[in-house]
């Protein structure tokens, strides 16, 4: 039996429709891609007039901003990278699978919290608190890692009957109350230490001995707040990279007598290295471009200072503050667009690098998987 055929008269119409639709889609798709490309072209075009002016002015106006951007990004990376990578190592290799399937989406949701909310908490809650409790805040940085090690040591000493109740694969969860208690202990301890060794007030001590000024909204606050915002993106990518390491590699190392930590250090980290590198790169890209957190948590003063207790002003914050007031075509306008161009090129390059590295890594895993 032959299949029913459409009447011949409708065939050309269908072909025509198809041609038109394909043309439209192609035009639309290329148009969208061109529009995206237009961003780079526009930024370049608008900075061309600056070339006529000579470069000294642009450099002197933008250099403090560049320093501020860099300083904020470095502070955020110093805070976020260890925490994010540690969390990724633990959740990819040590955590129970059931817990990981809950924790990972939760930490990824952290990324969705709007920057303006994080900035508000940092600028109006965290900054005044740290100003009053600077010693406690600095003590916490030392105290928390120590308390984690203490928890581990106690667990090792603990009776073998207690250990199954607090399984190490769930440590990420049951350490939360422990850390909370340790924070309280540190807050109680800090004033004592301050009274004993630092003459009662750390800020005055710093001022007297090192000549360091303390500003309420400073680099430390920006680092913590922006670090909080970029932890999830670094964590998520690094965790993917580590979890995708072929299990045969780890098992082989352990079969040859390595402990899990040795297997991680000698096998998993070198294998997943490019993936972790690209995760850190993407985090750096975010830290450089983040606007609202820097705007709200730093005091927006364009300074050249390396002190973590002084304010800063980044490219993005300068654009957000000054560009609405700058007259189009004026010098400030072009300078700020140059700042935007720098941000654009930097993040684009960093992201491309990360993407290429990740692509290579995926191919490497693929090869390793085939050999298995």
């Amino acid at each position: 039996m032959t299949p029913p055929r459409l009447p011949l008269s409708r065939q050309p119409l269908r072909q025509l429709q198809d041609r038109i639709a394909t043309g439209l889609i192609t035009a639309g798709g290329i148009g969208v891609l061109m529009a995206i490309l237009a961003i780079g072209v526009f930024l370049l075009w608008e900075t061309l007039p600056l070339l006529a002016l000579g470069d000294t002015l642009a450099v002197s106006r933008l250099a403090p901003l560049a320093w501020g951007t860099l300083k904020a990004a470095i502070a955020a990376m110093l805070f976020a990278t260890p925490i994010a990578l540690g969390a990724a190592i633990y959740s990819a290799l040590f955590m129970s699978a059931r817990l990981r399937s809950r924790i990972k989406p939760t930490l990824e949701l952290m990324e969705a919290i709007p920057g303006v909310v994080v900035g508000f908490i940092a600028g109006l809650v965290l900054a005044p608190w740290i100003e009053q409790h600077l010693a406690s805040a600095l003590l916490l940085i030392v105290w928390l890692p120590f308390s984690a090690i203490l928890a581990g040591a106690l667990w090792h000493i603990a009776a073998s009957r207690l250990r199954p109740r607090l399984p190490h694969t769930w440590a990420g969860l049951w350490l939360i109350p422990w850390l909370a208690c340790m924070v309280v202990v540190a807050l109680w301890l800090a004033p004592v230490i301050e009274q004993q060794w630092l003459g009662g007030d750390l800020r005055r001590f710093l001022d007297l001995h090192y000549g360091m000024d303390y500003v309420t909204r400073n680099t430390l606050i920006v680092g913590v707040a922006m670090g909080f915002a970029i932890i999830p993106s670094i964590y998520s990518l690094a965790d993917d990279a580590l979890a995708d390491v072929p299990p045969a590699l780890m098992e082989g190392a352990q079969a040859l007598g390595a402990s899990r930590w040795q297997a991680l250090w000698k096998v998993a980290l070198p294998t997943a290295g490019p993936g972790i590198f690209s995760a850190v790169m993407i985090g750096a890209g975010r830290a450089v471009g983040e606007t609202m957190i820097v705007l709200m948590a730093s005091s927006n003063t364009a300074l050249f200072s390396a002190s973590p207790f002084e304010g800063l002003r980044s490219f993005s914050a300068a654009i957000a503050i000054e560009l609405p007031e700058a007259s189009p075509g004026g010098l400030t306008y072009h300078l700020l667009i140059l700042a935007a161009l720098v941000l654009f090129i930097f993040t684009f390059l960093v992201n491309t690098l990360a993407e290429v590295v990740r692509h290579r890594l995926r191919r490497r895993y693929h090869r390793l998987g085939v050999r298995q």
Partner: protein
Amino acid sequence: MKRRSPHTIREATWLRDGLWPWLCAACVALSLLMLAALLTLLVTRGLSHFWPATLEEVTLGSGDIIIGQSVREAPLPQNAGLERLYFTGNREITGANWRWVSVDDITQQSTPNDLIRLERTPWGDFIGRLIAVESEGQQLTGQEAWDHVKNALTMPPSQRANSELLLATADGQTLRQPVSGISHFQAPNAMSWGQKTYVWGQNVWRFLSQGPRAANTGGGVWPAIFGTVLMVILMSVMVTPFGVLAAIYLNEIAHQNRLTRLVRIGVRNLAGVPSIVYGVFGLGVFVYGIGGSIDTWFFSDELPSPTFGTGGLLWASLTLALLTLPVVIVATEEGLARIPDAQREGAVALGATRLEMLTRVVLPMATPAMLTGVILAVARAAGEVAPLMLVGVAKLAPQVPLDGEFPYLHLERKFMHLGYHLFDTAFHGEDVQAAIPLVYATALLLVLIVLALNLTAIFLRHHLRRQRGNEC
């Protein structure tokens, strides 16, 4: 020989690892702790503001009496001891809404039931006592006065009777307050838990449904919610078709060669470009470029005051559409790539043209992926503030962009946005102290909206993966 259970073996390997894994575990715990602390702070401070606070009457050592709501305590700057901040209201009499009191200085403290709190339009809050109500020549006192005020408040201000309240402040001064200027009246100390809960619900509703009052220190955020939602809807109307078109082009029509791969990487990377850069593009191209041209062509009689040549709803949503385009393209492409080629080949083998194959087979299968992309785009746009500061957000928009006047939707108007409202109230307000509780509430609302959108996207994606898993 003694056999060791698998558990003890596993435990033994863990013991050999030493203490490093504990540091890593603490990193997870610390991240979760920070997230929990942030959310708890927002929820408790954001919601407790609406609870009718107890008013205290405090007698100081100097004989002064103040009535107010205790807000917080802080250590005294020089000597030991605490000081407490009271919100006392009555700005027209005392000159300030706030008063710091040393805790040691307080000799007597009580919470009498007859203390009242009024929200008024010209001067902000009044805290004190109600003596009487003067209405049409007669003076009402006691329960009658209360009933009269309650009745009056049920009507809109313009229709209320011409009566006045006789009020007494803490130090015994009396003042007259016309009923028409009162927006809210309560005696929190006399309320039961049930009544307080009811008032709490009412306050939350007023926060969501009213406009801001008293330089953003009171009232609600309705215009900001409205502006955010309208902008996000306009944005999704623009971004969905173009994002899907681009994804279909990249995945179904373009030849898969080196160039397509490059374009794909480029699009993916644009998602990582800082949002402020999109804001700069929007300002330079949409506002000054296209908007300026539109003004010279169509609105030249209104120049030099710009119509489209300044930030507005249209430019803001266009900018955000461009910002979220990569999100939609990437999500849709993932959905398209996951459809097995056999489906496409089957459709074509049965005689379908490419258009028919796309519209009848491929697109219906990719719909959940597209939806996920759009929801993620909306979630990103709802929380984004930086680019909006350049292309059209306003501190206080006098006119809502949607009204009964032709052409109903005013694309050129500036609008209010939740995120920017939060930023502006917290950092540029006159009385930041008074605005802080509302800022917390706004932040909570914003976080809830964004998290709800993200959770929807996650569940949708999860559902989609499971469905596909069954099919294959």
